[in-house]
């Protein structure tokens, strides 16, 4: 299968997890990645520039109507949902919270699944709520690949467990193995 994009959702403990994965990707890595990390609405985007500095690929806060580009990581701004449009641009919204969260992982995953169908990889990382479970199920229903961080290795295991309970997951991996999976998926696309 040729995959065209990756979506990642994380909550409690997610900053460390995201940093670990993204900073392990090589500069030639070309799949676009969109990420929702639950944060307080008052958080600024300083941490995004920190992850960018540690990474070989570009990491930025998502701008509305921005086209998903190869080799770029887009992170949802605090207090906005992030969605993927059919023309592969990004949208932001201030719609009501989903699963008590804005940005919500389900919102990103479901919209991305509508666009990329079976060519999408969805990843649920550490967290202590069940956001992302329905979104990951939707990705699977569309034929995409479902990846979950091994709950025992997550700072908070509840979110990965909820995702595993919601759908037939393809890979359950410790944090350090997730970047390697991305790299092997990427090599198949070359």
């Amino acid at each position, binding site marked *: 299968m040729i995959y065209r994009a990756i979506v990642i959702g994380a909550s409690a403990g997610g900053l460390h997890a995201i940093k670990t994965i993204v900073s392990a990707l090589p500069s030639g890595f070309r799949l676009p990645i969109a990420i929702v990390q639950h944060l307080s609405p008052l958080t600024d985007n300083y941490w995004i520039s920190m992850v960018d500095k540690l990474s070989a690929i570009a990491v930025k806060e998502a*701008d*509305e*109507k921005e086209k998903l580009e190869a080799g770029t990581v887009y992170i949802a*701004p605090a207090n*906005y949902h992030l*969605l*993927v*449009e*059919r023309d592969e641009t990004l*949208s*932001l*919204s*201030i*719609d*009501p919270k989903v699963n008590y969260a804005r940005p919500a992982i389900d*919102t990103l995953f*479901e*919209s991305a699944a*509508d666009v990329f169908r079976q060519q999408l990889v969805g990843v649920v990382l550490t967290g202590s709520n069940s956001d992302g479970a329905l979104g990951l199920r939707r990705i699977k229903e569309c034929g995409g690949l479902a990846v979950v961080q091994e709950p025992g290795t997550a700072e908070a295991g509840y979110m990965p467990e909820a995702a595993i309970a919601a759908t037939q997951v393809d890979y359950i991996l410790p944090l350090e193995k997730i970047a390697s999976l991305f790299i092997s998926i990427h090599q198949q696309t070359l």
Partner: protein
Amino acid sequence: MTKDTTEIEIHLLLEALYRKYGYDFRQYSEAHIRRRLMNRLALCGLQTISEMQSRVLHDREFAAVLLQDLSITVTEMFRDAEFYRAIRQSVVPILKTYSFVKIWHAGCSTGQEAYSMAILLQEEGLYERTTMYATDFNQRALDQAREGIYANEQMKEYTANYQRSGGREAFSDYYTSNYNMAIMEASLKKNIVWAHHNLVTDSVFAEVHMIMCRNVLIYFNSDLQSKVQHLFRDSLTHGGILCLGSKESLRFSGLAEEYIELDKVQKIFKKKYPGGE
């Protein structure tokens, strides 16, 4: 390439809604429309968007429900406290040079941001000489805004926002609690003109010194954003102030050259005078 069936159905439904009732969502961002329509589909017991289209055409009440689904009614008082801080610092001194101030708050929804601005202007001694036109296409939201009655439980959050925004008074002075409702003070309402206006289909509303339209344009595609930005440009006086949401910009409008950036982060712009500044 074959188009996704749901995508075709959504286009046809939006076309039906526009032709029959005049509400035009055809240039809204699709992912957001699709999400709301799928939520309604799950709730209404119909099987497909096409079935919803038929119901929209034949059932006025269902159309009204859908209209509420599609309109943006999420708002809060002093949302983005830093924005109001920036207004106090960079915009109030400009408004103070005018003998009267006309403000257009476009897409005011249920009115929380209009009341926030009224409070700020009152504290800055500007409210008495201000007329604020607060407009929306959603009549139900507008009625709620005019009433100015909100759930008491929201007031805690609003108070925290207000304090972060540089508010100097006791926020509870601005409303009266009655059981579980908070009723906004009449003195805040007296210079607000609530009016029906649709940014997508209506034209210039009035000539004003300041326009506030925050987190509305993110729901529009770039063509519609550009069209509305032209409407704003044509409605502002020279030296007039444009306030957008913190993730919005002028970049699809081709009008960036016509404004000076007063606050880059809070997205506050000042329309240039014909000679430049």
